[in-house]
């Protein structure tokens, strides 16, 4: 019997030893590695999901940018695209990409966390302690540096704090054309964490500091975990009946000819053609 106890103790010790690395791996980072989607019932792409898209957002815009936004809303009501550039397949960039028009997957790598979007290119959040690069060009997604935080001291990380800078533009927060400042000096701060009461809900509390705003604007984006993920293939395509020449948008008629998108739109400049059309 003593030998059996001894064998049992050894077996228990072995189990402990073998369980330990797995637990250590599991506990270092929170259980983010999954597919995440916006909750059912969200209509459109409101930046603050608690409010309707468009003017209903009551965004803290300075008067100059409130006027730009209202012009965009009016232009869209008349059939134009306003400040929304998605139609010509420009990148949404940060922070709009975090509205998740398609699902997102999170992967942890040694030096960074990768957000893989169905409807956008991968976003890397560097967590290796690096500083802001001095020679990087501004991009629509910006450059993201993150830090894992163990807020309750239980030995595992709960929150990924992220700061993103170095942008390119133009960028808008919604398809309504809610604008960010054209100086692209935006700073975005995020806190990404699992809901305390529901580990199948992920929060991204996003604070935007931008010269188009009177004060930092914070919203709480929530995503729900998908346990049986499926993925669609998405690569933005300009619709075949649309053409963009410089900053101007044109339609293409069913018989393959160029058409204006709005009344009195001038035709494109044809100076590089040597002969008039017969």
């Amino acid at each position, binding site marked *: 019997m003593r030998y059996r106890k001894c064998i049992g103790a050894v077996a228990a010790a072995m189990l402990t030893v073998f369980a330990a690395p797995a637990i250590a791996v599991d506990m270092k980072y929170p259980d983010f590695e999954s597919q995440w989607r916006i909750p059912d019932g969200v209509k459109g792409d409101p930046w603050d999901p608690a409010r309707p898209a468009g003017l209903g957002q009551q965004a803290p815009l300075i008067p100059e940018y409130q006027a730009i936004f209202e012009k965009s809303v009016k232009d869209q009501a008349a059939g134009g695209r306003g400040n929304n550039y998605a139609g010509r397949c420009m990148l949404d960039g940060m922070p709009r990409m975090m509205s998740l028009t398609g699902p997102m997957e999170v992967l942890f790598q040694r030096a960074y966390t*990768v957000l893989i979007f169905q409807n956008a*290119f991968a976003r890397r959040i560097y967590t290796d302690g690096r500083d802001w690069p001095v020679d990087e060009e501004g991009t629509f997604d910006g450059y993201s540096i993150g830090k894992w935080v163990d807020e309750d001291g239980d030995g595992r990380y709960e929150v990924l704090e992220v700061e993103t800078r170095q942008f390119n533009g133009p960028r808008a927060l919604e398809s309504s054309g809610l604008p960010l400042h054209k100086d692209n000096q935006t700073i975005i701060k995020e806190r990404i964490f699992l809901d305390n009461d529901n580990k199948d809900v992920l929060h991204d509390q996003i604070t935007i500091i931008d010269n188009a705003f009177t004060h930092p604007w914070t919203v709480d984006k929530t995503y729900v975990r998908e346990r049986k993920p499926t993925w669609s293939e998405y690569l933005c395509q300009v619709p075949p009946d649309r053409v963009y020449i410089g900053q101007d948008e044109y339609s293409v008629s069913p018989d393959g000819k160029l058409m204006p998108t709005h009344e009195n739109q001038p035709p*494109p400049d044809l100076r590089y053609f040597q002969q008039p*059309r017969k």
Partner: protein
Amino acid sequence: MHYPTTIGAMAVAALVSLNAAAAKAGEMQYPDIETQWRNPLSNGFGNPWDTTKPMGLGQEAPLTPEYQAIFEKSVKEQADGGQGNSLGLTCIHPGMPKVMNFSEPGEIMIRPHATYIVTQRYPVRRIYTDGRDFPADEAPTFTGYSIGKWLDEDGDGRYDVLEVETRNFKGPRVFESTGLPLHQDNQTIVKERIFLDKSDPNTLHDIVTTIDHALTRPWTVDRIYKRVREPKWREKTCHGANLHLAIGSEQYFLSADEKLMPVKAGQQPPDLRYFKQSNK
């Protein structure tokens, strides 16, 4: 007393041995390929499918007579300033297998259930390694559906090769920007063996075999990628870099000052009959 001592010794030996195995499994289970990889030929001067041969007709692709004629027509059209079978100007997804030419760098990430190939300007490619079968109800895609299997070919306790099979395609797809075509029936099967070079761990091979009704036999090429130790990522979209546009069936260029330009000598400007006023 002999038994407990023996059991203890066995237990210690087992623990040491299994601990070493566990550590080895944790660190060595997959090959060291989680990094950025670049195609050494992606220098802006063409990206041949078979990297040992020149692009275009120089590939000597094993095309059926029907598809050889389609290819030759494409080559001729391009020589005349057209696009041929290449749909790159529309920014359509190049799909498999062309996406593995890594015209821009890509990164590999490994999880037990899937290996991810994250390229700079295309959607991520997932190679499922969780033992699943090909789905029966999945919509076809340009990238197809990829199922992989890790192999330990030399029996040293770590995987050496990722074998992949990809099916369920849509098209049109080509191998090269020259318009080297795949069959329009999209019944392509692509088989790959991805592994590190035995003499140079900074070189990754993807031996790609394409089985397609446009080909007289399976066509195998060895794609090679070079490891990047300090990767940088550029933000690049096809649309942002695209200087081509199509109006109906006509192709045009966009000039540096964003004005419409002809792609060939003597090309007429677009028909402006639907505009009420001339451009001043």
